């Protein structure tokens, strides 16, 4: 167990160095990405430019800048924002993480609660109209990304407003529960489709296994066969897809947070790109990379809980 964690922690270190280096290199090498020019706007005179570049330490060689970043990161300090003078990236990202977790977890739970039972029902009614209809709907949600669904929602809002009909809020998050409904549902839809399809496949596979046939031949009730014998075994492959799908959920949240004006990590990252605020972007990338790695470790642990044959080594 200890070796497992140690190995994963070392892996995490490489992931963080890797993603920060790639992000840093992209920011450094990309054309038109000068944060000082962005800060100065119409007052970008050569003198003002030189003074401010020096004050931000951007006149130093790239390896010094990157080295300083890594050194600060080792102390848990993500540095200072360019766009928000004097604001530390830690202060900036902290509240954003809490909101993104809230959004991501709510959507994940909703996707699991709706997706897995739908997949199981489809598997139990395989090749009937129930299966076809359910899977068609799920395939539709799986295939249509959030950034396509959101404009349709906005058009719907336009129609409702034009007819003086009540609507759910157009944007926002912290104002109340009603503000959370639409972003969570839209974020959950894609994953729901994914989970439903995986559940159906896995369940069908399990239902064909000998031990299920044996359970039925023993005269166990269908409910007992499904929940006790089939479902538990179907959980295992499902768990293995939840980890990677969390990363998928995060990338989906980027779009949702941006279009619903939700102050999460994804929205912060998109704004950081627009503002050439590389420290904030690097901070969000580090946070997301760490989150994905940790979630994968958690899933590995859950895997061993669900299947006693597997032991973490």
């Amino acid at each position, binding site marked *: 167990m200890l070796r497992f964690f140690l190995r994963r922690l070392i892996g995490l270190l490489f992931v963080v160095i890797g993603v920060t280096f790639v992000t840093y290199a992209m920011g450094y090498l990309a054309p038109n990405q000068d944060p000082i020019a962005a800060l100065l706007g119409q007052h970008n*005179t050569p003198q003002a430019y030189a003074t401010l570049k020096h004050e931000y330490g951007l006149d130093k060689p790239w390896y010094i800048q990157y080295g300083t970043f890594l050194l600060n990161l080792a102390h848990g300090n993500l540095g200072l924002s360019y766009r928000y003078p004097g604001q530390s990236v830690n202060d900036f990202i902290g509240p954003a993480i809490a909101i993104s977790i809230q959004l991501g977890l709510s959507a994940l739970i909703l996707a699991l609660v709706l997706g897995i039972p739908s997949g199981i029902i489809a598997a139990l009614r395989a090749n009937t109209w129930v299966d076809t209809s359910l899977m068609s709907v799920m395939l539709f949600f799986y295939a249509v990304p959030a950034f396509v669904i959101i404009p349709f929602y906005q058009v719907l809002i336009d129609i409702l407003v034009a007819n003086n009909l009540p609507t759910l809020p157009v944007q926002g998050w912290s104002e109340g529960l009603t503000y959370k409904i639409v972003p969570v549902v839209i974020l959950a839809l894609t994953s729901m489709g994914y989970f439903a399809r995986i559940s159906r496949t896995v369940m069908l596979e399990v239902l064909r296994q000998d031990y299920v046939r044996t359970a039925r031949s023993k005269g166990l009730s269908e409910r007992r066969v499904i929940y006790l014998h089939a479902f538990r075994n179907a959980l295992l492959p499902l768990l293995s897809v939840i980890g990677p799908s969390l990363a998928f959920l995060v990338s989906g949240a980027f779009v949702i947070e941006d279009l619903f004006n939700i102050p999460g990590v994804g929205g912060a990252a998109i704004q950081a790109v627009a503002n050439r605020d590389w420290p904030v972007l690097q901070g969000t990338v580090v946070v997301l990379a760490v989150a994905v790695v940790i979630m994968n470790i958690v899933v590995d642990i859950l895997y061993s809980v669900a299947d006693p044959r597997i032991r973490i080594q």
Partner: protein
Amino acid sequence: MTLPNVGVSEISTFDPALPSDLNSAEAIQLTFSGLVGLDPKTLNVVADMAQDVPSVANGEITNNGSTYTFKLKPGLKFSDGNPVTASDFAFSIDRSLDPRLKSNVATVYLGAIKGAMDRYAGTNGVTSIIGTGVVVVDPSTLQINLAQPVAYFLEAMTYSTSFAVEQSNASFTNAKWTDNAVGTGPFMLKEWVHSDHMTFVPNPYWYGAKSKITQITMPFIKDTEVAYKSYKAKELDMDGLGATITSADYADAKALPNHQLQEGPYLETNYVSPNWNIAPFNNQAVRQAFAYATDRDTIAKTVLKDSVYSTDHIVPNGMPGYFAGLQGLAFNPTKAKQLLTSVYPDPTKVPAITLTYPDVGDNKAVALELQSEYTQYLGVTIQLNGEDFNKLVNDVYGNNIQFYMLAWIADYPDPQDWLSLQFTKNAPNNTMNFNDPNFDALTNKADVEQNQATRFTEYNQAEELAVDEVAWIPFSQNKNTYVVQPWVSGFTVDAGGLIPDSVWANVYVTQH
């Protein structure tokens, strides 16, 4: 009242020493204030925390315009109840210039003060201008000494870099002090949920007329179209603060009942500029030909759907000193062709021209229209080059971009910002290499002239020269557009896009 701050997911700063964007200035304006402010209608300088506006007549501008004396109103207090004295202003102005703050606007507004440039750059051993540039005469009298006379100094003082911050509250090194910032404005900060919203409540020690508004919630909405949809869904009391209504929503907003759309001039001029050092624009007749071939009405009405005003002025309408009688180079294709053929009888022999434009918003559509107009009316071929805005601004300072499209937004409401700062021989913004000694003489005189009417006349003459000789080819002035719900009364935004302090006394929200 819900007052959205649109176009950003968070304000850049709430520190009055730092804002370089309208969004930050909107929040700062609610909570902080200065010695002088602006009249919301005329943009003339009016007294704010000072008893009156310094002038030569009242003896508060002396030493040939190099010394300004401000007398504070009696009984001024910060929102925490502590008194405001002249030393608070000295501290605040000096602090704005402190290099630790890395303000990228402090020298734009305070650079004229004696020692300010050294204080900002940390050069010549200047670590404070208190006692030299800013002098506390007594607790209610502040004297400011300029390095040399500048007549636009009071206009520059209306910017937040001169606003009062409390010495025990404002930090030089910890930016988080603004989470609990104390100011002197009509409202004080109650809550700031970063990247989400700010909440303001009335300042009990506010020295002006009290507002009937009991609370302002300022959500940050970065997408302008989302903000407009939210407004239409009645989630917001107004929309258009920080970022005006877009051309895409303008027609819809105009059709809203009860005249919800408010519009007026915004102090931003959009222009194309020919580089005087690069052929064919090294010839005045060619430059004028391009100016005459620019169909500004088509750009404003057809391309930008009336969301801007067409203009051939450099100094925008709404500015003090605006030259209503300016004879610009109005659209005249016949004259344009004549002028061009007087230099190039065969227009196909005109050297290759590339128009570089900032590839953001509606600029590409405008560039395409200009390309079509110059081809149609002058018979020349124009290549288009869309660039990132910040790169373009960076590049034009190399003085070697042939023909470029940019915009200028007022730093402060004075023609000096539009003329001297742009076109005098050594002005940093003279990126088109404009060169006219008569222009320099007129603006140099106007920059120090204390008689406002005389200096405006001098600026008007200078502007006429810059337009005639084609320093810029202005084509549109932005509109200040915002929408206000029918249940909100008395709300107004000035031509600089800000809500002046005095407006709040008249704003009220009825039951809805």
